[in-house]
């Protein structure tokens, strides 16, 4: 089953899984069971059977609490991590199994932007060098003058004065550094940009500047985004669709307007109710009680059951699958399926 109904997706992940081995000493991995000593490696189940597709021109936002697997999904898609199982497809081609030469064209078409632009910019390279490097890498033999034109063009596009090209990253503010990181992604004419919390570290007035820049790039260059954020007002503004993750599992996937007007999954409902409102004096915030499980000891049944006020025996035993709702949303919840949420 593919996650949703969007025609031929530009990017698609199918049954994607990622487990990380926990660093443990050899002795800690030994278990004594039924008269035998066995070796058991404990693992972090960071991403569990996630399937979804992203259509050309979309901005799919991924939300969920910290540690729910957002960055891992982003890195799997961008090819910075290899899936434990499942697959990643770009425009119909399976890419997670490619390497070297075969992967190169996809490396260019898919670019990634990170939360901390300082960490992702080389402090010893000038902005000019930083921006030229990917152009030279991906467009071999492009004449020098054209490389420089390209760099000047993207600098203007992101609102950084090309006269500053000889400066180093530390000479720029956080917002300007994020513009430069975006410029670097744009120099190679990507089609698809994975942005992992690109504005979370910035102040409100600077967030607006960078978000506008990304919207502009979307309109003018026809970009498709996978956009990770924990700020739901940004999701509502920027996203065309939203995927809600909990404990590495997809619990809801819907059009942005649908999700905000009519959140279905108990976790999505709680999440939306928790956003502090600017003008509403009487928020009806849904308090979540109960232990937050870790992705090391994955619970059986529904991953949200320990904090869910609708959980019953079935939720404890059987994991809910994403099921399509009449308005096209996908929701993985037994209570929604059984229509006992009211």
């Amino acid at each position, binding site marked *: 089953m593919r996650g949703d109904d969007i025609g031929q997706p530009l990017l698609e992940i199918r049954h994607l899984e990622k487990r990380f081995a926990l660093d443990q000493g050899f002795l800690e991995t030994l278990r004594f069971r039924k008269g035998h000593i066995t070796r058991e490696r404990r693992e972090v189940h960071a991403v569990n059977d996630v399937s979804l597709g992203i259509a050309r021109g979309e901005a799919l936002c991924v939300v969920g*609490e*910290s540690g729910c697997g957002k960055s891992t999904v982003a890195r799997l898609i961008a090819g910075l991590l290899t899936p434990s199982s499942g697959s990643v497809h770009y425009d119909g081609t399976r890419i997670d199994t490619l390497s070297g030469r075969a992967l190169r064209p996809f490396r260019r078409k898919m670019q990634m932007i990170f939360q901390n632009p300082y960490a992702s910019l080389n402090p010893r390279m000038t902005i000019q060098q930083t921006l030229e490097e990917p152009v030279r890498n991906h467009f071999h033999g492009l004449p020098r003058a054209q490389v420089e034109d390209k760099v000047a063009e993207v600098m203007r596009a992101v609102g950084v004065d090309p006269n500053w090209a000889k400066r180093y990253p530390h000479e720029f*503010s956080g*917002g300007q550094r994020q513009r430069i990181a975006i410029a670097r992604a744009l120099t190679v004419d990507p089609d698809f940009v994975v942005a992992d919390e690109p504005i979370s570290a910035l*102040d*409100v*007035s*600077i*967030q*607006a*500047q960078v*978000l*506008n820049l990304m*919207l*502009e790039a979307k309109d003018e260059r026809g970009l498709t985004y996978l956009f990770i954020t*924990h*700020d*739901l*007002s*940004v999701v*509502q*503004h*920027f996203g065309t669709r939203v995927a809600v993750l909990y404990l590495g599992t997809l619990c809801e996937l819907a059009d*942005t*307007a649908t999700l905000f007007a009519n959140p279905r999954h108990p976790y999505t409902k*709680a*999440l939306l*109710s*928790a*956003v*502090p*409102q*600017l*003008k509403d004096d009487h*928020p009806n*915030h849904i*308090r*979540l009680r109960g232990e*937050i499980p870790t992705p090391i000891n994955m619970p059986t049944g529904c991953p949200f059951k320990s904090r869910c006020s609708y959980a019953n025996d079935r939720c404890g035993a059987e994991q809910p699958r994403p099921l399509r709702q009449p308005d096209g949303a996908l929701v993985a919840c037994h209570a929604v399926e059984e229509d006992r949420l009211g």
Partner: protein
Amino acid sequence: MSLLSVRDLVVKFAMRDQTVTALNGISFDLNRGERMGIVGESGAGKSITGFAILNLISRPGFIDSGHVMFDGMDLAHTSDKALRTIRGNRIAMIFQDPMVTLNPVLTIGQQMVETLQAHRSLTRRDAEKIAVAKLREVYIPAPEERLQQYPHELSGGMRQRIIIAIALLLDPQLIIADEPTTALDVTIQADIMELLLELCQSNNVSLILITHDLGVVSQMTERTLVMYAGRIIESGRTRAIINDPQHPYTQGLIKALPQQTLPGERLKQIPGNMPALSAIPPGCPFNPRCEYTVDRCRTTIPELVRVGPVEVACHEVQRMNRDTETEEQTA
């Protein structure tokens, strides 16, 4: 009478080549049980204000002038010894990172008992009883067991609850909370804020809540100070400031929020950045980014002046307001 009264507070930093001014004449009053927010972008001077109230500015920073009157004492000019009876006792502070306050090598119980015994003569058993009661007050399940645990064994949200329990241990009159939930997930943030609000209300504790999140300020506080480049540029009832901001910077901050624009449309952005302390322009510190700037803004610093229900430091707001008043009088 107000619990806290800050007057003309000036904090400077002596840097190698020059001395810069981080707080430039801050004045405000806070009543008993009142909750006040301080908002503004990073570098505005919010945290420095919190530290200066407790006289915790350390070198190269110093309180250059001004007063911090707390219950008849001027904390800006009080001996360290006297301050120790105030800090953590009558004024508690909560930071973004709980590990600033928590000692990683002591159990929660040891830290709570130590804090209590430092200010009260209590037996260990009695101190533990109070600790358990406070943990229960902040809805920590199985509080007796938590006393035996170390900070790293707890989640971020749980740690911040424990910090609130520690802040409440000595029944303070004022809590200064500096971005207490910025590092936490939104569902956990909502729980912690609700808890803080409930505790302040039921114990009549005053709160200074420092945050960059206007939504949080709106939910939590009765009054708000908006800071920019070391100055208060607008202050008044939180509702009034959110619903009808007067200062162009406050207006810009609120208009820049994504929920103020239709999905997919360009956000209304404030151009430029807040200046570094060493490069604050003459006149109104906001003038290079402001769309209403006139000549006077580049030369003369606007004072905070009452305009309707708020106080605003802006020449143009004051002029427009005078003009409407004159119109009303002639009409």
